[in-house]
């Protein structure tokens, strides 16, 4: 049976109670314990720094050339915290409630409540590190709104919040490197997990420069390796983001939970052609000021500026008057798809909608004019001042849009379309963030725990840092307290030998195929299958077809892939092949999971299950559980169900109208 180890007692006291009773490791014993951390984004860097500060010996790994480049850096909009600095009614309970509701009642109450409890500490910690959050003229921190909420609780640093938070965590990490408490392994990739007597005891990593395989021991292993959105090929993830470390853990016995829960972000720059290698997000914060619309008549090819106000359909404002353009991501994405599928899409591909700032520019311009005390300003003057305000708020995003599309969004509305952005699913973890393999932990996007079937904006940064700064330093100690008697295991142990041989054989096998098709071409084909059948809308027949297609693709990959270069040296194509091979297997599991879940919830929309007005229709009687999949054999998984129990919140049909 799956035991989530949720502490007993009333919800608001569970975490306090846990912290008051968990086991501790004394400082001299911490020095004898080694911890491996794979991935150094927000979750990994914050965990590495915090654990090293406590005295553990940390080894941290990232595939990038520096931990400062991990993909958390690309997060734009902000980070939520229940500070209630705006006096607008926010509280820990409200952040907890919004997150559970936003996740369409498929997340664990205890985990989410803890997340809301520590959210304020994160802001304090980051400010102390020197993270330059946006501030008001009085010198205090500024907030803005994000989707799915009616309070202003999002802290931000222009459109580069992820960058600033990551640099904060990176600097804390580098300080520990300088102190000798962390040994950093950049340009390294974990290719196998080592388990001894059922416990995670180390990893096999490939030095991506020399090609050498290395063995590393740890009393515990923390996977902070991010999400698996690149299974779709096109996503807003970085080119290198991958599922390999998590997948190795899965194949070694760690359960993979809710893999079909993926987030399609509503506001991304549309695909421009077959050459496209990745998609770029336009922050959700833009929906604070931008209005989303399509022409009211089908196949309208006029320029957007030529379409009069009464010939436009602001469909989010029309369908969801209470939340308007700030509905949650899953709702906004589906609404865009619905309009485009019906023939109202814009741009050459007709797979786009407008995000328009004209109103905001005039609104801000008028405020500036009144600040200056002018009475008879011209429209041009108002627009000029309004543009300045918009530039200060979103300048970097507007520049980015212009570089990619060649269009000036201050003059013409942005064209946007949904794109794969985040994965709520991930390795199953208990309340302590431990996977089903003792000694193996998963933090941040790599685990499944806090966002249910849909993540609210500005919550990913919050969760990554909560796990790393404020959760794992306690929960890891609770388990490592029993490890103080265990000396480090020499990496000559047969389990390390066996794991290294496994990696080496797989690499030899990949290199020996010498087929005709490139790794990239397989990745593209996989992405198309998953996007078409396991993307924004899913059906039973489509998913069945996708499973067959992915299985066939796997066969073809392993018989016809062509990888150039050498094993003992730098070989980015080989690295990519290792990742794509795992994505193919994951892709199959995603479809299996989506097929099993005969309901619609959050980002998982099964066309067979919808309300008369096209909203997701949950089946709480049969599917109010976490689907945790255990790897059994090739193409075979065993399903374990963790029932979700709502003690405090009463699940209802989500309503943003």
């Amino acid at each position, binding site marked *: 049976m799956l035991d989530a180890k949720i502490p007993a007692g009333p919800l608001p006291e569970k975490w306090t109670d846990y912290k008051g009773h968990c086991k501790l490791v004394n400082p001299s014993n911490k020095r004898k314990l080694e911890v491996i951390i794979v991935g150094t984004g927000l979750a990994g860097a914050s965990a590495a720094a915090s654990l090293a500060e406590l005295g553990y010996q940390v080894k941290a790994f990232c595939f990038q050339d520096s931990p400062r480049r991990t993909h958390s850096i690309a997060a734009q909009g902000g980070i939520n915290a229940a500070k209630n600095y705006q006096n607008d009614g926010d509280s820990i309970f409200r952040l907890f409630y919004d997150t559970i509701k936003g996740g369409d009642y498929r997340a664990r109450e205890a985990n989410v409540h803890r997340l809301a409890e520590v959210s304020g500490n994160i802001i304090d910690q980051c400010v102390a590190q020197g993270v330059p959050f946006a501030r008001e003229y009085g*010198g205090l921190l500024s907030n803005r709104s994000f989707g799915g909420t009616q309070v202003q609780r999002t802290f931000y640093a222009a459109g580069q919040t992820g960058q600033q938070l990551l640099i904060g965590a990176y600097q804390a990490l580098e300080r520990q490197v300088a102190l000798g408490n962390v040994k950093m392994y950049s340009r390294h990739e974990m290719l196998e997990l080592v388990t001894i007597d059922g416990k995670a005891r180390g990893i096999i990593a490939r030095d991506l420069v020399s090609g050498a395989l290395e063995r590393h021991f740890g009393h515990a292993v923390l996977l902070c390796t991010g999400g698996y959105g690149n299974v779709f090929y096109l996503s807003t993830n970085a080119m290198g983001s991958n599922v390999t470390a998590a997948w190795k853990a899965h194949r070694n016995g760690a359960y993979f939970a809710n893999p079909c829960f993926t987030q399609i972000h509503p506001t991304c720059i549309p695909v421009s052609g077959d050459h496209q290698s990745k998609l770029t997000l336009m922050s959700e914060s833009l929906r604070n000021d931008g209005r989303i619309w399509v022409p009211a008549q089908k196949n309208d090819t006029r320029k957007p500026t030529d379409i009069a106000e009464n010939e436009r359909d602001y469909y989010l404002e029309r369908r969801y008057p209470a939340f308007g353009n700030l509905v949650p991501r899953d709702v906004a994405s589906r609404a865009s798809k619905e309009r485009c599928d019906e023939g109202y899409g814009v741009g050459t591909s007709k797979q786009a909608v407008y995000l328009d700032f004209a109103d905001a520019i005039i609104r801000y311009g008028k405020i500036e004019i009144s600040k200056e005390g002018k009475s008879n300003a011209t429209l041009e003057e108002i627009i000029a001042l309004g543009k300045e305000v918009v530039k200060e708020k979103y300048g970097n995003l507007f520049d980015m849009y212009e570089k*990619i599309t060649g269009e000036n969004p201050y003059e013409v509305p942005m064209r946007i379309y949904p794109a794969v952005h985040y994965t709520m699913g991930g390795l199953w973890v208990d309340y302590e963030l431990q996977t089903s393999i003792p000694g193996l932990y998963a933090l941040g996007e790599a685990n499944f725990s806090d966002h249910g079937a849909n993540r609210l904006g500005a919550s990913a940064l919050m969760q990554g840092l909560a796990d790393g700064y404020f959760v794992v330093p306690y929960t890891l100690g609770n388990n490592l307290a029993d490890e103080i008697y265990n000396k480090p295991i020499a990496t000559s142990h047969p389990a390390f030998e066996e794991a290294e041989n496994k990696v080496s054989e797989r690499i030899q096998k990949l290199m020996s195929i010498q087929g005709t098709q490139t790794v990239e071409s397989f990745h593209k084909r996989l992405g198309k299958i998953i996007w078409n059948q396991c993307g924004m809308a899913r059906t039973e027949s489509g998913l069945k077809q996708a499973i067959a297609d992915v299985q066939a693709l796997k066969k073809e990959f392993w018989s016809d892939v062509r990888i150039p270069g050498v094993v003992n040296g730098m070989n980015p194509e080989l690295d990519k092949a290792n990742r794509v091979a795992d994505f193919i297997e994951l892709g199959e599991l995603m479809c299996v999971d989506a097929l099993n879940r005969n309901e619609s919830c959050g980002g998982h929309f099964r066309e067979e299950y919808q309300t008369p007005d096209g909203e997701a229709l949950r089946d709480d009687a049969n599917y109010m559980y976490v689907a945790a999949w255990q790897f059994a054999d090739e193409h075979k998984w065993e399903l374990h169900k963790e029932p979700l129990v709502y003690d405090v919140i009463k699940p209802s049909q989500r309503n943003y109208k």
Partner: protein
Amino acid sequence: MESDRTMEHYHMNLNLKVWRQPNSQTPGAFKLYRVENISSEMSFLEMFDVLNEQLIRDGEDPITFDHDCREGICGSCSMYINGKPHGPWAANTTCQLHMRAFHDGDTIVVEPWRANSFPVIKDLMVDRSAFDRIIQAGGYISVNTGNAVDGNSLPVPKDHADQAFAAAMCIGCGACVAACKNSSAMLFLSAKVSHLSLLPQGDPERSSRVVNMVAQMDKEGFGACTNTGACEATCPKEISIANIARLNKEYLLATLTAE
């Protein structure tokens, strides 16, 4: 923005002169390649993807280069294009450069960052770990997790916060070093010193930070600054050279007041 930009979509054939170098020990050389039917809507790195797919199919070794986020924020990409770090567009990274900057028949020269402190690993990929070691020397505020007071207990004047943010936008790509005739890392270093010394939180370590970071920069072999401003002109995040003036002031204050 850029004058050579156009909305019109077109295709082009290009000649590429690319630096190939097997590793840091072996000398490298330029090699010529031709790519055809490149869309003006592609990014520069997508054009390299096309070339690499072509090389793999032809049984040749694809070109190695650093890249990751492809949206101008991670600082991985680092190509020296037609004599300029990150190519012809101002305030731009290689990954955000799009092919509408070029025309049919162009020859494009692509080199790695050139600086002794950034040794070539392979082809266009260099080792920038010196930057991490400069940060290790003091580019942080020493505050352990859990020590923080309430975020609003320490008001920071908006203009200080804004200036600190403008400096903290540095992506650590190293274009400033590559553009400098002396291979100086002063813009990179000064951005971090400015970011932290402009904030009250950074004050306690203000003196030791600047002294230690400058010492590490010198140890890594970066050259001196002669104020030519090439770094500022090439910086994808438009980090101002005023930060170098602030660094000099901070360094002078720290060394003159040292015990």
